[in-house]
């Protein structure tokens, strides 16, 4: 199993009042799944994503990614684990404004101290795959929302991570661009066998997943597999977003 959560609890202090964001959650996610997580605001879905990515630590319980209990790792170790094994896609893209599209994609490897010239072929290939071959030297402020999110996806794919965590990846995009992005993620799962965990408010977006987990008040309200029809082959030229 790629990802295991065992009796995970997360409690925050809101002022002096403890708030239980996650209540004793146990969950397993296998390779090649596209898991959509839904729930109202404050239901614990984002907290779950943060724990999966090692961005936060559980109050109790275990988070095991690819057989590694990440809550036991030191801050530096979990940082290194993240950059080697996980990919992140954020709602607001989180591209570095001072870097070009190519450099943004290369960032995880730059953090590993690889030379830019060694990273460039793979980063260029990913951007071309995202139909951004003509935007390599553009900075984020020269790109549209959809383009920025595709750069962010390319960045998440750079290290060929087993697990991609997406926090509302279409939340800031128009519906047409959003659909293209979701198709892209869906194809990645199907073609590369990568695992995507996506938090979303949007039922339509969630329907692109192969599994839908619904959260309510820090607990799993439902967990169901979704049968997906064969999606149309992705024609990159259509992704004119």
């Amino acid at each position, binding site marked *: 199993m790629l990802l295991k959560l065992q009796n995970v609890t997360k409690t925050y202090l809101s002022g002096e009042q403890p708030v239980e964001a996650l209540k004793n959650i146990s969950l397993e996610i296998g390779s090649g799944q596209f898991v959509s997580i839904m729930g109202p605001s404050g239901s614990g879905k984002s907290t779950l994503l943060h724990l999966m990515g090692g961005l936060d630590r559980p109050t109790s319980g275990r988070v095991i990614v690819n057989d590694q209990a990440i809550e036991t790792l030191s801050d530096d170790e979990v940082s290194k*684990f993240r950059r*080697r094994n996980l990919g992140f896609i954020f709602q607001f893209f989180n591209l570095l404004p001072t870097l070009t599209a190519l*450099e943004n994609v290369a960032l995880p490897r*730059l953090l590993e101290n690889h030379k830019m010239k060694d990273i460039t072929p793979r980063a260029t290939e990913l951007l071309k795959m995202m139909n951004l071959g003509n935007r390599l030297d553009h900075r984020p402020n020269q790109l549209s929302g959809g383009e920025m999110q595709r750069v962010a996806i390319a960045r998440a794919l750079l290290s060929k991570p087993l697990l991609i965590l997406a926090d509302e990846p279409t939340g800031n995009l128009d519906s047409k661009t959003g659909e293209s992005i979701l198709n892209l993620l869906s194809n990645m799962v199907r073609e590369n066998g990568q695992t995507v965990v996506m938090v979303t408010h949007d039922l339509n977006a969630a329907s692109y997943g192969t599994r839908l987990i619904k959260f309510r008040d820090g607990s799993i309200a439902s967990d169901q597999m979704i049968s997906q029809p064969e999606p149309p082959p992705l024609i990159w030229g259509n992704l004119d977003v």
Partner: protein
Amino acid sequence: MKNLFFYIGLPHLRLKPLRSLLTLLGVAFGIALYVAISIINHSTKNSLRENIDAIAGKAKLTVTGGTVGFDDRVLSIIKKHPGVKSAIPMIEERAYIAGKKEKSGSLYVLGVDLLQEQSIRSYKTTDQKVINDPLVFLNQADSIIITKQFAHEHQLALDSKLKLATANGSRSFTVRGLLEPEGPARAYGGSIAIMDIDGAKLSFGKGEKVDRIDIITEAGYPITEVQMELERSLGKAYQIETPETQSKKLDSLLESFQLILTFFSSIALFAGLFLIINSISIAVAERRTEIGTLRALGATRTSMIILFVGEVIGMGILGSILGCLIGRILAEFLSAQVVTSVAQQFQTHISPEKLSFTTREFVITVLLGTLATILSAIWPSLKAAQIHPLESMKGYTEHQVSDGARLAKKLANGGLIILFLVTCSAVFEWERYSTLISASTKAGYVIATALFGPFVVILFLKGLERIPRGTFSAVFHFSHENLLRNPKRTINNVMALLVGLFLVMLISTIRSSFHDTLMGWLDQTFISDILVTSTGRIATTEVQALNENIQRRILKIPGVRAIGTGRGAGSRVIRVPYLDGKITIKAMDRFADFYSGRYISAVHAEPLELIQRLYGPFQPSVLASQDFLMKHHKKEGDTILLNTPRGTVQFRIVGAIYDYAPGGVLYIDRKIYKKFWNDSLVSAFAFNIQPGHDLEQVRNDIERTLGKQLNLFVISNHEFKVQTQEAIEQSFAYTRAIELIALIVGMLGLLNTLLISVIERTREIGMLRAVGSTQGQISQMIFWESILQGFLGACVAVVFGIYIGWLFVRYSLVGSIGWIIDFHVAIPAILSTITVGILVSIIAGYYPSKKASKLLITEALDYE
């Protein structure tokens, strides 16, 4: 890590050139002042050492005995002493060009025995005849040799006449030779003249005394042994020293003065470094999401520290190099003022021409400057490392606001603790225990102000909330709210300006305390209508001493009234060695009793009582200045031993007085002084004007009848006070430049933070414009914010400047220079600090306010 710097750090510096430049300049100016002061301190010491070495020549030991010299019969004793190969006497006297009131026309006259001189000092003149055949020189009593430099400066040539003020009036000398800048001619910046020793004795009223005897020891005799033997046989009245010991003594004399200079320049350096801390703190706050993203993508905490430290390394190196260059130029500008101050305080001459800043010093400064920059970047970098990866996922505005309010309190608590510690350090004199404690205390003054100040500003701002709406314009209220809404930003802005303004207020307070104390003391003690002196500057007692019999001739002039018991009151001021330093002796004629001793500023006693004790039957006695008593742990009734030309004499301290001559002062009855020092010269005569006579008329009469002949000058009570005031101003002239630099650094800091706050608020400004704010209103809003911060920062700077000034004057100053100064707060200083604060904030706020008003609404709304 290299990647982080090149791909993340460097682009930030490159894409924000104005901010990078402002930070760079902040570091550069901070370092510049430090460099300038270091260069001056170093060069002053070198110059003093050079003077000593140049005059000493080949001498291994030098015998001296204070300003008035010692009996020349000592020479024969020394010559007979085992281990002494040769002993050469010398007269060393500062002489003034006759007819010039100011001391700019002065030179050091070395009265030497040219027949013996070649064995100890070598002179080179343009025409070697005078040196090779000194008899020609000696046969003409008016002969003098001056340096080529002095000749050039005063348009003199061979056979020119040079009129000098002597003890018996002005006397004309003929230039017989011009010295090349070698040997003793290098000393005192070339303001050197050579005369025959007997002629010098006569001219300067030395009688049978000499000022120094230079000794060359026999080979094979250890110098220290000869020194000890001479000390044993000559007694304590004589100082027998090697040139190295003389240098060290001068170094230690300068130490306290240089410590104050270094203190001021350290604050400016700290202000520069503070700019770095501020700038990075703001960058960290601004780039919170970016840092969070990097952390989420796998950047470690350490790499975040390295990233931010790396960003300032380049700034540190460039800023330090630029600082060195500016500092070198600044040193040129400051040196004349500092040197005047040093020369005035220590009554010695220093040539500032040779300001040296070696390549080695340059490299060390750049390295230290860079290191200091790195150290100042560590704290904000640690804060960056603490940013959680989750910051990439959420907005942080609210978090930042509450964080700012908490931060102000936290900083204030830290500031309060430091303030308490530095207060304890000053009050309980911990500073005396080690240089480190002393330096930390001084740094603590600044840090406490910087940390506590913003909290006070926030409190002020909260207080302003009580002002009913409508009292001021809506834009003013909006600006005020903006400042309160983002305390973190306000803290940064205020801190940037505060350090500079604090320094201005601190210096002003110290300066006004000195000024008011000295002028108050002078008003109390200087009561005669006129003073008659020779060329020089009486306010700093740099004058040619006069023959005491001159007073009889002055008294014959109509309108002149005796101030003393039947005569003019003469006073003689000399500097004499005491223990490891030098003190001032003021020997004064007794004033008539009916003056009630008003001319003495007594400590815890009636002046008349002290006068009666000083001139009473129990002699020899002295009145001692309070700083002398404190420095030497003496009290009334104790005795002190003074080395006089007549041997060591025990004096009883019969009272404590206030006097502010450097090193401590002793008042002695001039009759007693004449007896022990064998010196009847007078530095100045005090007279009153008879009722019904006009002061100007009497002055003209004195100058007309005796002035030209005896080179006398008359200054009125008022003129003397003005001259003293000028001397005080001159002593502190250098502090003006320090204040200016501190203000520039503070202004750069405020400009930097204001610019950032405009960028930070681009979207908010766009929104305000969208809902109908005019360009003028936006501009006014930023402008008001700037002025409010400048005003409040200045108010806090005033409060802290006064408090720290009080600590410094009341406690630290006593420890460092031994002067007891009354604390005075200058109202003009308060007003000028507040005005400067507002002006600086207006200058700093102008560009950002224009920039904000010109933002395009649509672009501003889209700004991320």
